[in-house]
């Protein structure tokens, strides 16, 4: 479980996160949704520890990572996996070495064990016989899956994904969504996905946090989302005719 309490972040004089409170639950797929530029990526990067917050607290299962407690982050980092928007695979390493990389840094296992673990994670994300390839030789969807394999190789307690579906076709997006959902429930992880893909919201979102102009505007589950009367949320979700039609049909 990750708790965010009254988090504020400035970029120079501009307030990009304004007193944000949120609760991301264990064993659930938690989504952060919002328009481009709303502050959701800043929130995600603050959770990962890549951006320090100016005020407020972030707790990972009760362990504070903000302010003077920043050193705790070092041990928490070994418990977290991150999937970046473009995959962020290391170009100079093969697929196998990319997945094995966190083990090389943090694990004391033998070379054979590390290799077996990396191959197991690749199989788990349904990638076979690609371990010798380099990132440049992979499709967008395969890159995302390798990134997921790398993120779960240390069996993390927390999984963060920044727009995992961006640039993917609808079919591959569903595959990635389902994979993330399966892994979350299989390993009991606290998964936080940053997205503005409506399909992901309705397909896998169990706990949804809506960020609007740097503030948490709304929080709830899928059912509540459909029935919400929050104007900013409704504008974001149901601007398209198709989404409005889906909402009307479901309700």
């Amino acid at each position, binding site marked *: 479980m990750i708790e965010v309490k009254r988090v504020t972040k400035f970029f120079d004089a501009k307030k990009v996160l304004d007193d944000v409170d949120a609760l991301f639950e264990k064993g659930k797929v938690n989504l952060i949704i919002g328009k481009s530029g709303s502050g959701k990526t800043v929130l995600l990067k603050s959770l990962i520890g890549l951006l320090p917050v100016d005020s407020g607290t972030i707790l990972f299962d009760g362990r504070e990572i903000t302010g003077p407690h920043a050193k705790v982050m070092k041990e928490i980092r*070994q418990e977290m996996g991150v999937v*970046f928007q*473009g995959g*962020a695979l*290391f*170009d100079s390493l093969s697929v196998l070495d990319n997945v094995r990389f966190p083990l090389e*840094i943090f694990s004391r296992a033998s070379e054979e064990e590390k290799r077996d673990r990396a191959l197991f994670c690749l199989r788990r994300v349904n990638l076979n016989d690609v371990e010798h390839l380099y990132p440049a030789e992979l499709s967008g969807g395969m890159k995302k899956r390798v990134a997921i394999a790398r993120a779960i190789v240390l069996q993390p307690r927390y999984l963060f994904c920044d727009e995992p579906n961006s640039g993917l076709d609808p079919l591959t997006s569903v595959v990635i969504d389902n994979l993330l959902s399966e892994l979350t429930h299989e390993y009991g992880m606290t998964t936080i996905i940053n997205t503005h893909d409506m399909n992901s919201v309705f397909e896998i979102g169990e706990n949804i946090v809506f960020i609007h102009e740097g503030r948490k505007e709304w929080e709830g589950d899928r059912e509540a989302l459909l029935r919400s009367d929050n104007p900013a949320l409704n504008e974001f979700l149901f601007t398209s005719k198709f989404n409005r039609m889906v909402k009307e049909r479901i309700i």
Partner: protein
Amino acid sequence: MKFLETIGNYLLFTRRIFARPEKSRVYFREVTNELEKLGLNSIILVMIISFFIGAVLTLQTAYNMSNPLLPRYLIGYLTRETLLLEFSSTIVSLILAGKIGSNIASEIGTMRITEQIEALEAMGINSVSYLVGPKIAAALVINPVLYIFSVFIGIIGGFLAGLSAGSVNYDDYLNGLRLEFNPYYVTYSIIKTLFFALIFTSIPAFYGYNVRGGALEVGKASTKAVVDSSIAILVVNLILTKILL
């Protein structure tokens, strides 16, 4: 003001380079990779340039020594001194600043814009130390080696050119090479190559690491890295020469 800010940021950046690596074994493996990437891949270029510059130095010296009172062994002597003192250390480092410097700036810059650096940081790895440290360590090892290599190849180039053009004979050239040899010149030049190695790896790494934006910014950073590291090499060359000679 902007210049001072850049210098300050660069110094903070270099402090992070020398932080203790997370896992020494992985770090040393990277050093080996960089030795191959930066060093071995530069040998052919250094060989070609040194050979031809050595040849041209000999021919130009011979051309300017039409006075029959000047001994012919001075051709070998001057070729050696030029290679030993300046060309093989400074000029070769300037060339490497172009080749290696642009490579480092674009490699690290691309890693920045594709979030590979963020991925390292998210794993709790000091990305500066991991990415830049091995490059500097490899350059510190390989640059003095390339210097020695360049001196020898330059001398061979000069000898072959002088001999084939009839500008100098074997004995005169060899006598010139042996004339008043001061071993301290080698020490002085090796010290310079160490400083230059630090410059042509750390400055491009600094510019690459701080890229913000896209491919266009990576290109700009690469150009800036080469220009600034070349200027830094020239300035440090002057200071070291004043101190050491």
